[in-house]
């Protein structure tokens, strides 16, 4: 529904993402707000925003394969690992510049994603989830068992990002590298979602038989979805490494205590709403804030209730995470993005909507 007084006169107008003057205003305000954030926010907020941005890139990838294409994947953390290790290895062992190592990490990760996507033509639902969990285990196992290349279980140094002579050696400097990448990746994902490939993905999700009858090659599009998803994970990993400084296999496990664990990422897609880029953004923000609240609350809980100390912090976060996902699945299975649509519609109809 369009806001009152707005009329589409061309198809281009109907297809635009940002349509009205108010939307442009909000869009520019948010962009300016995000880009000037380090000027007034604390170091904690800046580093949290970087982490959120990196998470968002990985979630966008998952939103493509799971949200749009309907192929459930719990392997995303493994692909993030592939990306992080690829860029770290290329930079430390082969002296590749950071600006090349990031896309290279994406492509290597996409390639690994393609390998594990091959069974997706025959395997569906539950069984595919098992395959992706298997993919995750195989990736972690490989990282641990190639100590010469990856440092094995001890991990390896992920050097600071640098372009030319300029090194992004503080969070504030790195912020200005990560955030534009996040914005670019969001823009690309949104466009993929609303064009030919995105419609093919949703067609496969909603009705794979009909999709095939309508001329969509199931195999190549499932492969494409997995590759794109792994590419996003790879980019996220390449950005995550320099932020951590040192990477080891534990950073890419699927445990609830790991902020980029595949369970969290899937939770972000579900809470945000499947099949929507806005949903990926909202879901990421929601669960990241939850993660931050948990880590801020843990020391307080530990001092106030010493009996609970040994459960914190992982269990506490896990319980809240599980609770949030359950509440959303029951109360709003279509996620925050659907809520937002309802809010928008009722705002535009006001006072005729309740």
């Amino acid at each position, binding site marked *: 529904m369009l806001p009152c007084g707005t009329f589409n006169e061309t198809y281009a107008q109907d297809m635009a993402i940002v349509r009205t003057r108010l939307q442009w205003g909000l869009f520019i305000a948010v962009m300016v707000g995000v880009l000037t954030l380090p000027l007034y926010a604390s170091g904690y907020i800046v580093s949290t925003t970087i982490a959120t941005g990196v998470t968002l890139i990985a979630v966008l990838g998952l939103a493509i394969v799971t949200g749009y294409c309907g192929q459930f994947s719990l392997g995303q953390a493994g692909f993030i690992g592939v990306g992080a290790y690829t860029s770290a290895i290329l930079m430390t062992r082969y002296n590749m510049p950071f600006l090349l190592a990031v896309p290279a990490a994406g492509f290597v990760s996409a390639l690994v994603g393609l390998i594990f996507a091959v069974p997706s033509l025959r395997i569906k639902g539950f069984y595919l989830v098992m395959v992706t969990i298997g993919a995750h285990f195989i990736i972690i196992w490989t990282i641990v068992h190639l100590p010469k290349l990856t440092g094995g279980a001890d991990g390896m140094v992920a050097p600071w990002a640098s372009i030319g002579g300029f090194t992004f050696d503080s969070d504030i400097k790195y912020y200005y590298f990560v955030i534009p990448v996040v914005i670019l990746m969001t823009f690309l994902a949104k466009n*993929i979602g609303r064009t030919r490939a995105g419609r093919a993905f949703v067609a496969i999700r909603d009705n794979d038989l009909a999709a095939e009858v309508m001329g969509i090659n199931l195999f190549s599009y499932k492969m494409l979805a997995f590759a794109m998803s792994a590419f996003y994970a790879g980019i996220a990993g390449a950005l995550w490494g320099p932020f951590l400084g040192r990477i080891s296999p534990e950073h890419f496990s699927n445990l609830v205590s790991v902020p980029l664990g595949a369970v969290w990422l899937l939770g972000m897609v579900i809470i945000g709403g499947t099949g929507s880029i806005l949903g990926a953004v909202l879901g990421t923000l929601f669960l990241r804030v939850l993660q931050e609240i948990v880590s801020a609350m843990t020391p307080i809980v530990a001092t106030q209730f010493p009996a609970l100390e040994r459960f914190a912090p992982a269990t506490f976060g896990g319980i809240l995470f599980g609770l949030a996902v359950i509440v959303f699945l029951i109360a709003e299975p279509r996620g925050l993005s659907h809520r937002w649509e309802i809010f928008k519609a009722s705002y535009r109809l006001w006072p005729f909507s309740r």
Partner: protein
Amino acid sequence: MQQPETTRKSTLAVDNIFLSFGGIQALKGVSLEVGEKEIVAIIGPNGAGKTSLLNSINGFYRPQKGRIFFNGLEVTNLSSHRRAQLGLARTFQNIELYTGMTTLDNLMAARHIHMKYNFLWGALYFGKAHDEEIRHRRVVEDIIDFLEMEAIRKKVVGALPYGKRKLVELGRALALEPKLLLLDEPMAGMNTEEKEDMARFILDIYEEKGIPVVLIEHDMGVVMDIADKVVVLDFGEKIADGSSKEVKSNPRVIKAYLGEEEPAQTGTKV
């Protein structure tokens, strides 16, 4: 088979196909020909193999024997999506739509095979991709206009009433710009008014767009009115093939539909 199929002037030629599932013979040597300008109806009692025949034509099932030609090209071993790319579109008995998408997106998704730009252009949504999107949007809007679906353009199809969904499915098949349209019970479960609308749309498609149609239908009134040729199946065999008049008076057809014409043995009178 008397001559190579490629020389014939037929849109679709099904040549003596056999299809079985385990021990069940679903199709036993069925042949069928659809001309360039024809509405062909397939009728038959339940379980006669009508849908199996349609599924074989569009590649869901692979017949164990026999061959299928589409516009002079053998398609027997091609997958469904390849056949769709050649111009074979269909609708389903139990509506198979992309339930989470809007009517518009359902139709746009069917333009897939006509869009040329790849996903990288799509990701940038620039130049080629943008122009093509608008061009295909125009085609889709024509179809929406043609089938009078303007009011449901932006409605999610999962929430639409049955009759509308049938219509969206027809629209989606049309958006493929098919060279042959296969309709599996397009009027099942509809009221008289909706049936009349649907029959009108089918005739319009045939007359205005010149697309030959194969349809499965149970409503004899509709079949007799719109079909140029009627094919009757019974227990996987073709028992009659001809104009509706010929078929109506065919004794095998009457037998299949009404049973034997022998006097009843039970002896009880009503």
